[in-house]
Protein backbone atom coordinates (compact mmCIF):
# COMPACT_ATOMS: atom_id res chain seq x y z
CA UNK A 1 0.00 0.00 0.00
CA UNK A 2 1.01 3.51 -0.85
CA UNK A 3 0.15 5.54 2.23
CA UNK A 4 0.70 9.25 1.65
CA UNK A 5 -1.54 10.88 4.24
CA UNK A 6 0.17 11.92 7.46
CA UNK A 7 -1.43 13.07 10.67
CA UNK A 8 -0.09 16.61 10.72
CA UNK A 9 2.68 18.88 9.50
CA UNK A 10 5.02 17.96 12.34
CA UNK A 11 4.86 14.23 11.71
CA UNK A 12 5.05 14.67 7.92
CA UNK A 13 8.35 16.52 8.32
CA UNK A 14 9.75 14.34 11.11
CA UNK A 15 13.18 13.04 10.19
CA UNK A 16 13.12 15.00 6.96
CA UNK A 17 14.42 18.36 8.08
CA UNK A 18 18.17 18.91 8.26
CA UNK A 19 20.31 21.97 8.84
CA UNK A 20 21.54 23.48 5.61
CA UNK A 21 18.96 21.87 3.33
CA UNK A 22 17.41 23.50 0.26
CA UNK A 23 13.64 23.89 0.40
CA UNK A 24 11.21 25.09 -2.24
CA UNK A 25 8.14 26.78 -0.79
CA UNK A 26 5.05 27.48 -2.90
CA UNK A 27 3.04 30.68 -2.94
CA UNK A 28 2.98 34.15 -4.41
CA UNK A 29 3.08 36.78 -1.71
CA UNK A 30 0.96 35.24 1.04
CA UNK A 31 -1.38 33.57 -1.46
CA UNK A 32 -1.19 29.77 -1.65
CA UNK A 33 1.57 29.33 0.90
CA UNK A 34 1.98 26.12 2.97
CA UNK A 35 1.18 27.74 6.31
CA UNK A 36 1.18 24.60 8.42
CA UNK A 37 4.43 23.24 7.01
CA UNK A 38 6.16 26.60 7.55
CA UNK A 39 5.04 26.58 11.17
CA UNK A 40 6.32 23.02 11.58
CA UNK A 41 9.70 24.07 10.19
CA UNK A 42 9.78 26.94 12.65
CA UNK A 43 9.00 24.63 15.55
CA UNK A 44 11.66 22.14 14.43
CA UNK A 45 14.39 24.72 14.91
CA UNK A 46 16.28 23.50 11.84
CA UNK A 47 18.62 26.21 10.56
CA UNK A 48 20.90 27.46 7.76
CA UNK A 49 18.11 26.82 5.29
CA UNK A 50 18.12 27.91 1.68
CA UNK A 51 14.65 28.71 0.41
CA UNK A 52 13.62 28.83 -3.22
CA UNK A 53 10.43 30.86 -3.12
CA UNK A 54 9.12 33.75 -5.18
CA UNK A 55 8.84 35.96 -2.09
CA UNK A 56 9.80 35.79 1.55
CA UNK A 57 6.50 36.48 3.27
CA UNK A 58 5.97 39.46 5.55
CA UNK A 59 7.55 40.20 8.91
CA UNK A 60 5.25 37.95 10.92
CA UNK A 61 3.71 35.58 8.39
CA UNK A 62 4.78 33.17 5.71
CA UNK A 63 8.51 32.54 5.37
CA UNK A 64 9.00 35.77 7.34
CA UNK A 65 8.54 33.81 10.56
CA UNK A 66 11.53 31.63 9.67
CA UNK A 67 13.59 34.74 8.95
CA UNK A 68 12.60 36.17 12.29
CA UNK A 69 13.58 32.91 13.94
CA UNK A 70 17.06 33.01 12.40
CA UNK A 71 16.61 29.82 10.39
CA UNK A 72 17.24 31.16 6.87
CA UNK A 73 20.70 31.41 5.36
CA UNK A 74 19.80 32.20 1.77
CA UNK A 75 16.83 33.14 -0.40
CA UNK A 76 16.45 32.42 -4.13
CA UNK A 77 13.54 34.68 -5.04
CA UNK A 78 12.26 37.28 -7.49
CA UNK A 79 10.81 39.90 -5.15
CA UNK A 80 11.41 40.38 -1.46
CA UNK A 81 10.10 43.91 -1.08
CA UNK A 82 7.35 43.40 1.50
CA UNK A 83 9.62 42.54 4.36
CA UNK A 84 11.48 45.00 6.60
CA UNK A 85 13.21 42.28 8.57
CA UNK A 86 14.58 40.89 5.32
CA UNK A 87 16.03 44.30 4.54
CA UNK A 88 17.80 44.57 7.87
CA UNK A 89 19.21 41.04 7.82
CA UNK A 90 20.40 41.51 4.25
CA UNK A 91 22.07 44.85 4.97
CA UNK A 92 23.69 43.34 8.04
CA UNK A 93 25.17 40.57 5.87
CA UNK A 94 23.21 37.91 7.73
CA UNK A 95 21.26 36.75 4.72
CA UNK A 96 22.29 35.75 1.21
CA UNK A 97 20.04 36.61 -1.71
CA UNK A 98 19.95 35.38 -5.29
CA UNK A 99 17.44 37.32 -7.35
CA UNK A 100 15.90 35.79 -10.47
CA UNK A 101 13.41 37.30 -12.88
CA UNK A 102 10.07 35.83 -11.87
CA UNK A 103 9.50 34.00 -15.15
CA UNK A 104 13.03 32.67 -15.12
CA UNK A 105 12.57 31.44 -11.56
CA UNK A 106 9.30 29.71 -12.48
CA UNK A 107 10.88 28.15 -15.58
CA UNK A 108 14.02 27.06 -13.73
CA UNK A 109 11.85 25.16 -11.26
CA UNK A 110 9.81 23.60 -14.06
CA UNK A 111 13.06 22.64 -15.81
CA UNK A 112 14.46 21.06 -12.65
CA UNK A 113 11.37 18.91 -12.33
CA UNK A 114 11.23 18.08 -16.04
CA UNK A 115 14.79 16.86 -16.51
CA UNK A 116 15.83 19.94 -18.47
CA UNK A 117 19.43 20.79 -17.54
CA UNK A 118 19.16 24.34 -18.81
CA UNK A 119 17.22 26.56 -21.19
CA UNK A 120 17.75 29.71 -23.20
CA UNK A 121 15.60 32.79 -22.51
CA UNK A 122 15.68 36.38 -23.75
CA UNK A 123 14.74 37.54 -20.27
CA UNK A 124 17.56 39.41 -18.60
CA UNK A 125 19.87 39.62 -21.61
CA UNK A 126 22.01 42.74 -21.29
CA UNK A 127 21.28 43.03 -17.57
CA UNK A 128 23.09 42.01 -14.41
CA UNK A 129 21.08 38.79 -14.43
CA UNK A 130 22.94 37.55 -17.50
CA UNK A 131 26.43 38.42 -16.26
CA UNK A 132 28.78 35.46 -16.50
CA UNK A 133 26.20 33.23 -18.12
CA UNK A 134 26.61 31.74 -21.61
CA UNK A 135 24.53 33.28 -24.37
CA UNK A 136 23.47 31.94 -27.74
CA UNK A 137 21.74 33.30 -30.82
CA UNK A 138 18.40 31.89 -31.99
CA UNK A 139 16.78 33.49 -35.05
CA UNK A 140 18.98 36.55 -34.70
CA UNK A 141 18.12 37.22 -31.06
CA UNK A 142 20.40 36.72 -28.09
CA UNK A 143 19.29 34.33 -25.37
CA UNK A 144 20.92 33.59 -22.03
CA UNK A 145 21.34 30.12 -20.52
CA UNK A 146 19.55 29.49 -17.23
CA UNK A 147 19.82 26.19 -15.35
CA UNK A 148 17.21 23.93 -13.83
CA UNK A 149 16.57 24.09 -10.08
CA UNK A 150 15.80 21.24 -7.73
CA UNK A 151 15.52 21.05 -3.95
CA UNK A 152 15.91 18.56 -1.13
CA UNK A 153 12.33 19.25 -0.12
CA UNK A 154 9.32 21.03 -1.59
CA UNK A 155 6.52 22.25 0.64
CA UNK A 156 3.40 23.14 -1.25
CA UNK A 157 -0.21 24.13 -0.67
CA UNK A 158 -3.20 22.83 -2.66
CA UNK A 159 -6.94 23.17 -2.29
CA UNK A 160 -8.05 19.55 -2.50
CA UNK A 161 -6.12 16.32 -2.58
CA UNK A 162 -6.87 12.61 -2.55
CA UNK A 163 -5.04 9.72 -0.90
CA UNK A 164 -3.07 9.03 -4.07
CA UNK A 165 -1.62 12.54 -3.84
CA UNK A 166 -3.58 13.98 -6.77
CA UNK A 167 -3.98 17.71 -6.20
CA UNK A 168 -6.02 20.62 -7.46
CA UNK A 169 -5.36 24.27 -6.71
CA UNK A 170 -7.81 27.14 -6.40
CA UNK A 171 -7.63 30.39 -8.42
CA UNK A 172 -4.35 32.32 -8.12
CA UNK A 173 -3.27 30.20 -5.16
CA UNK A 174 -1.89 27.83 -7.81
CA UNK A 175 1.12 30.03 -8.73
CA UNK A 176 4.46 28.28 -8.03
CA UNK A 177 3.01 25.22 -6.32
CA UNK A 178 2.63 22.89 -9.35
CA UNK A 179 6.23 23.30 -10.53
CA UNK A 180 7.64 22.94 -7.04
CA UNK A 181 5.68 19.69 -6.70
CA UNK A 182 7.84 18.32 -9.53
CA UNK A 183 11.23 19.62 -8.42
CA UNK A 184 11.66 18.48 -4.82
CA UNK A 185 13.36 15.20 -4.01
CA UNK A 186 10.73 14.91 -1.28
CA UNK A 187 7.40 16.68 -1.75
CA UNK A 188 5.06 17.40 1.13
CA UNK A 189 1.70 18.99 0.37
CA UNK A 190 -0.86 20.54 2.67
CA UNK A 191 -4.46 20.67 1.50
CA UNK A 192 -7.65 22.23 2.77
CA UNK A 193 -9.68 19.15 2.07
CA UNK A 194 -8.90 15.46 1.63
CA UNK A 195 -11.33 13.81 -0.78
CA UNK A 196 -11.91 10.19 -1.77
CA UNK A 197 -9.72 8.90 -4.56
CA UNK A 198 -11.88 9.16 -7.64
CA UNK A 199 -13.70 12.27 -6.44
CA UNK A 200 -11.46 14.62 -8.43
CA UNK A 201 -12.16 14.84 -12.16
CA UNK A 202 -9.10 13.16 -13.78
CA UNK A 203 -9.15 15.80 -16.53
CA UNK A 204 -8.90 18.47 -13.86
CA UNK A 205 -6.04 17.21 -11.71
CA UNK A 206 -3.28 19.82 -11.68
CA UNK A 207 -0.62 17.74 -9.95
CA UNK A 208 -0.67 13.98 -10.57
CA UNK A 209 -0.24 11.98 -7.38
CA UNK A 210 3.13 10.61 -8.47
CA UNK A 211 4.71 13.92 -7.52
CA UNK A 212 3.42 14.00 -3.94
CA UNK A 213 5.16 11.91 -1.30
CA UNK A 214 3.33 13.08 1.77
CA UNK A 215 0.06 14.90 2.35
CA UNK A 216 -1.51 16.57 5.33
CA UNK A 217 -4.83 18.31 5.88
CA UNK A 218 -4.37 21.71 7.48
CA UNK A 219 -6.52 22.29 10.55
CA UNK A 220 -6.78 26.04 10.27
CA UNK A 221 -5.75 28.25 7.37
CA UNK A 222 -5.20 31.90 8.24
CA UNK A 223 -4.86 32.92 4.56
CA UNK A 224 -3.83 36.45 5.36
CA UNK A 225 -4.38 39.03 2.60
CA UNK A 226 -1.57 41.51 1.95
CA UNK A 227 -3.54 44.25 0.22
CA UNK A 228 -7.27 44.31 0.66
CA UNK A 229 -8.67 46.54 -2.07
CA UNK A 230 -12.40 46.84 -2.51
CA UNK A 231 -14.80 48.92 -4.56
CA UNK A 232 -17.89 50.68 -3.27
CA UNK A 233 -21.09 48.71 -3.77
CA UNK A 234 -22.76 51.68 -5.41
CA UNK A 235 -20.31 52.40 -8.20
CA UNK A 236 -19.63 49.19 -10.01
CA UNK A 237 -17.64 50.89 -12.78
CA UNK A 238 -14.53 51.54 -10.68
CA UNK A 239 -11.99 48.83 -10.41
CA UNK A 240 -8.90 47.14 -11.60
CA UNK A 241 -10.64 45.44 -14.52
Amino acid sequence: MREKVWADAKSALDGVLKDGMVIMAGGFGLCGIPEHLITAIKNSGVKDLTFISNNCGVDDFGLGILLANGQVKKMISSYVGENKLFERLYLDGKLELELNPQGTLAERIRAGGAGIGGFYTKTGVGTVVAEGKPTREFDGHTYVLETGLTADLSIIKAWKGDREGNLIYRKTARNFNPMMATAGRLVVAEVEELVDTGALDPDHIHTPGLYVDRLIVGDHFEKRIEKVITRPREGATEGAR
Partner: protein
Amino acid sequence: MAWTREQMAARAARQIEDGFYVNLGIGIPTLVANALPEGMDVSFQSENGMLGIGPFPYEGEEDPDLINAGKQTITEIDSTSYFSSADAFAMIRGGHMDLSILGSMQVSETGDIANWTVPGKIVKGMGGAMDLVAGARKVIVLMEHVERSGAPKLLKACTLPLTGTKVVDMVITDLAVFEFEKRGGPLRLIELAPDVTLDEVKAKTEAAFEVALEKADA
Protein backbone atom coordinates in the same frame (compact mmCIF):
# COMPACT_ATOMS: atom_id res chain seq x y z
CA MET B 1 0.01 72.26 -18.56
CA ALA B 2 1.40 68.86 -17.74
CA TRP B 3 -0.85 65.81 -17.86
CA THR B 4 -2.16 64.31 -14.62
CA ARG B 5 -1.59 60.65 -13.87
CA GLU B 6 -5.13 59.93 -15.05
CA GLN B 7 -4.51 61.79 -18.31
CA MET B 8 -1.28 59.88 -18.85
CA ALA B 9 -3.19 56.65 -18.29
CA ALA B 10 -5.90 57.78 -20.71
CA ARG B 11 -3.25 58.51 -23.33
CA ALA B 12 -1.83 55.03 -22.86
CA ALA B 13 -5.32 53.55 -23.12
CA ARG B 14 -5.55 55.01 -26.64
CA GLN B 15 -2.81 52.56 -27.65
CA ILE B 16 -4.94 49.60 -26.69
CA GLU B 17 -6.80 47.97 -29.54
CA ASP B 18 -10.01 46.00 -29.39
CA GLY B 19 -9.17 42.38 -28.64
CA PHE B 20 -5.81 43.08 -27.01
CA TYR B 21 -4.34 41.00 -24.21
CA VAL B 22 -2.54 43.36 -21.83
CA ASN B 23 -0.37 43.19 -18.73
CA LEU B 24 -0.40 46.30 -16.54
CA GLY B 25 2.39 47.07 -14.11
CA ILE B 26 2.05 48.56 -10.66
CA GLY B 27 1.57 52.36 -10.20
CA ILE B 28 0.24 54.65 -12.93
CA PRO B 29 -0.31 51.70 -15.33
CA THR B 30 -3.04 50.30 -13.08
CA LEU B 31 -5.09 53.41 -13.93
CA VAL B 32 -5.13 52.47 -17.62
CA ALA B 33 -7.88 49.85 -17.22
CA ASN B 34 -10.35 52.46 -16.01
CA ALA B 35 -9.54 54.75 -18.93
CA LEU B 36 -10.67 52.30 -21.60
CA PRO B 37 -13.78 53.15 -23.61
CA GLU B 38 -16.85 51.04 -22.86
CA GLY B 39 -17.46 48.04 -25.08
CA MET B 40 -13.85 47.31 -25.86
CA ASP B 41 -12.92 43.68 -25.55
CA VAL B 42 -9.62 43.83 -23.69
CA SER B 43 -8.29 41.14 -21.36
CA PHE B 44 -5.81 41.81 -18.59
CA GLN B 45 -3.29 39.24 -17.48
CA SER B 46 -1.72 38.91 -14.07
CA GLU B 47 1.65 37.21 -14.11
CA ASN B 48 1.02 35.21 -10.97
CA GLY B 49 -1.32 33.10 -13.09
CA MET B 50 -4.58 34.60 -14.36
CA LEU B 51 -6.08 35.90 -17.57
CA GLY B 52 -9.26 37.97 -17.44
CA ILE B 53 -9.03 40.21 -14.38
CA GLY B 54 -12.28 41.57 -12.98
CA PRO B 55 -12.87 44.65 -10.81
CA PHE B 56 -11.87 44.93 -7.16
CA PRO B 57 -14.26 42.94 -4.95
CA TYR B 58 -17.04 44.45 -2.88
CA GLU B 59 -16.15 44.82 0.75
CA GLY B 60 -16.62 41.50 2.51
CA GLU B 61 -16.19 39.54 -0.70
CA GLU B 62 -12.39 39.51 -0.80
CA ASP B 63 -10.97 36.08 -1.60
CA PRO B 64 -7.45 35.42 -0.28
CA ASP B 65 -6.95 32.90 -3.11
CA LEU B 66 -7.60 35.60 -5.70
CA ILE B 67 -5.01 38.35 -5.99
CA ASN B 68 -3.21 40.17 -8.78
CA ALA B 69 0.55 40.51 -9.23
CA GLY B 70 0.43 43.61 -7.00
CA LYS B 71 -0.98 41.32 -4.28
CA GLN B 72 -4.29 43.22 -4.32
CA THR B 73 -7.63 41.46 -3.99
CA ILE B 74 -9.46 41.22 -7.32
CA THR B 75 -12.35 39.27 -8.86
CA GLU B 76 -12.85 36.95 -11.79
CA ILE B 77 -15.07 37.46 -14.84
CA ASP B 78 -16.78 35.06 -17.26
CA SER B 79 -13.71 34.68 -19.46
CA THR B 80 -11.22 34.14 -16.62
CA SER B 81 -8.74 31.30 -16.67
CA TYR B 82 -6.15 30.40 -14.05
CA PHE B 83 -2.78 28.76 -14.61
CA SER B 84 0.58 28.32 -12.92
CA SER B 85 3.22 31.05 -12.80
CA ALA B 86 5.33 28.96 -15.20
CA ASP B 87 2.45 29.01 -17.68
CA ALA B 88 1.86 32.72 -17.04
CA PHE B 89 5.44 33.51 -18.01
CA ALA B 90 5.39 31.07 -20.91
CA MET B 91 2.56 33.30 -22.15
CA ILE B 92 4.60 36.46 -21.57
CA ARG B 93 7.98 35.21 -22.78
CA GLY B 94 6.42 33.46 -25.78
CA GLY B 95 5.24 36.78 -27.19
CA HIS B 96 1.54 36.24 -26.57
CA MET B 97 0.86 39.48 -24.68
CA ASP B 98 -0.02 42.26 -27.11
CA LEU B 99 1.06 44.94 -24.71
CA SER B 100 2.86 45.54 -21.44
CA ILE B 101 2.50 48.93 -19.75
CA LEU B 102 5.04 49.62 -17.02
CA GLY B 103 6.36 52.41 -14.90
CA SER B 104 10.07 53.19 -15.02
CA MET B 105 12.88 55.17 -13.45
CA GLN B 106 14.89 55.64 -16.65
CA VAL B 107 14.59 55.01 -20.38
CA SER B 108 17.45 55.47 -22.84
CA GLU B 109 17.37 56.82 -26.38
CA THR B 110 17.94 53.27 -27.61
CA GLY B 111 14.96 51.91 -25.72
CA ASP B 112 16.81 50.46 -22.75
CA ILE B 113 14.78 50.49 -19.56
CA ALA B 114 15.86 50.63 -15.90
CA ASN B 115 12.99 50.19 -13.48
CA TRP B 116 13.87 47.65 -10.84
CA THR B 117 16.62 48.80 -8.55
CA VAL B 118 18.70 51.67 -7.30
CA PRO B 119 22.16 50.62 -6.13
CA GLY B 120 22.84 51.50 -2.53
CA LYS B 121 19.17 51.27 -1.68
CA ILE B 122 17.72 47.97 -0.60
CA VAL B 123 17.25 45.43 -3.35
CA LYS B 124 13.61 44.39 -3.61
CA GLY B 125 13.92 42.34 -6.77
CA MET B 126 12.83 42.59 -10.36
CA GLY B 127 9.72 40.44 -10.02
CA GLY B 128 8.30 39.89 -13.50
CA ALA B 129 9.56 43.13 -15.06
CA MET B 130 12.49 41.61 -16.98
CA ASP B 131 10.27 38.91 -18.47
CA LEU B 132 7.60 41.42 -19.43
CA VAL B 133 9.93 43.81 -21.27
CA ALA B 134 11.68 40.90 -23.00
CA GLY B 135 8.49 39.12 -24.00
CA ALA B 136 5.60 41.48 -24.68
CA ARG B 137 4.97 42.40 -28.32
CA LYS B 138 4.76 46.07 -27.40
CA VAL B 139 6.16 47.82 -24.33
CA ILE B 140 4.84 51.22 -23.23
CA VAL B 141 6.48 53.10 -20.37
CA LEU B 142 4.40 55.50 -18.28
CA MET B 143 6.56 57.77 -16.12
CA GLU B 144 7.08 61.34 -14.91
CA HIS B 145 9.27 63.23 -17.34
CA VAL B 146 11.87 64.16 -14.72
CA GLU B 147 12.88 63.05 -11.26
CA ARG B 148 11.84 65.02 -8.20
CA SER B 149 15.28 66.60 -8.31
CA GLY B 150 14.53 67.82 -11.83
CA ALA B 151 17.01 65.40 -13.41
CA PRO B 152 15.89 63.91 -16.72
CA LYS B 153 14.70 60.31 -16.88
CA LEU B 154 14.91 60.03 -20.66
CA LEU B 155 18.66 59.62 -21.03
CA LYS B 156 21.36 58.94 -23.58
CA ALA B 157 22.11 55.83 -21.58
CA CYS B 158 20.55 54.52 -18.40
CA THR B 159 22.74 54.93 -15.31
CA LEU B 160 20.74 52.49 -13.18
CA PRO B 161 20.94 48.70 -13.59
CA LEU B 162 18.97 47.70 -16.66
CA THR B 163 15.73 45.74 -16.83
CA GLY B 164 16.09 45.16 -20.57
CA THR B 165 17.81 46.57 -23.63
CA LYS B 166 16.18 47.93 -26.79
CA VAL B 167 12.75 46.86 -25.66
CA VAL B 168 10.69 50.06 -25.24
CA ASP B 169 8.25 51.03 -28.00
CA MET B 170 6.65 54.13 -26.49
CA VAL B 171 7.16 56.48 -23.56
CA ILE B 172 4.31 58.55 -22.16
CA THR B 173 5.32 61.17 -19.60
CA ASP B 174 3.41 64.00 -17.98
CA LEU B 175 4.83 66.33 -20.64
CA ALA B 176 4.94 64.41 -23.89
CA VAL B 177 4.64 61.20 -25.87
CA PHE B 178 7.64 59.57 -27.56
CA GLU B 179 7.82 56.53 -29.73
CA PHE B 180 10.66 54.43 -31.06
CA GLU B 181 10.46 54.12 -34.81
CA LYS B 182 11.69 50.60 -34.33
CA ARG B 183 13.16 48.75 -31.36
CA GLY B 184 16.52 50.30 -30.57
CA GLY B 185 15.67 53.70 -31.91
CA PRO B 186 15.59 56.38 -33.09
CA LEU B 187 13.43 58.05 -30.46
CA ARG B 188 10.80 60.42 -31.79
CA LEU B 189 8.67 63.05 -30.02
CA ILE B 190 5.13 62.70 -31.36
CA GLU B 191 2.96 64.65 -28.96
CA LEU B 192 3.10 67.41 -26.33
CA ALA B 193 0.80 67.89 -23.38
CA PRO B 194 -1.36 71.06 -23.68
CA ASP B 195 0.71 74.25 -23.30
CA VAL B 196 3.91 72.28 -22.92
CA THR B 197 6.49 73.61 -25.36
CA LEU B 198 9.08 71.80 -27.40
CA ASP B 199 11.72 73.92 -25.70
CA GLU B 200 10.58 72.78 -22.27
CA VAL B 201 10.74 69.13 -23.35
CA LYS B 202 14.17 69.66 -24.93
CA ALA B 203 15.42 71.22 -21.72
CA LYS B 204 14.15 68.37 -19.61
CA THR B 205 15.30 65.50 -21.87
CA GLU B 206 18.84 64.21 -22.11
CA ALA B 207 18.07 61.60 -24.78
CA ALA B 208 18.42 62.67 -28.40
CA PHE B 209 15.07 62.61 -30.18
CA GLU B 210 13.55 63.52 -33.51
CA VAL B 211 10.54 65.81 -33.56
CA ALA B 212 7.47 64.54 -35.40
CA LEU B 213 4.61 66.46 -33.82
CA GLU B 214 1.99 65.73 -36.44
CA LYS B 215 -0.53 64.53 -33.91
CA ALA B 216 0.18 67.30 -31.41
CA ASP B 217 -2.88 69.08 -30.08
CA ALA B 218 -0.93 72.05 -28.64
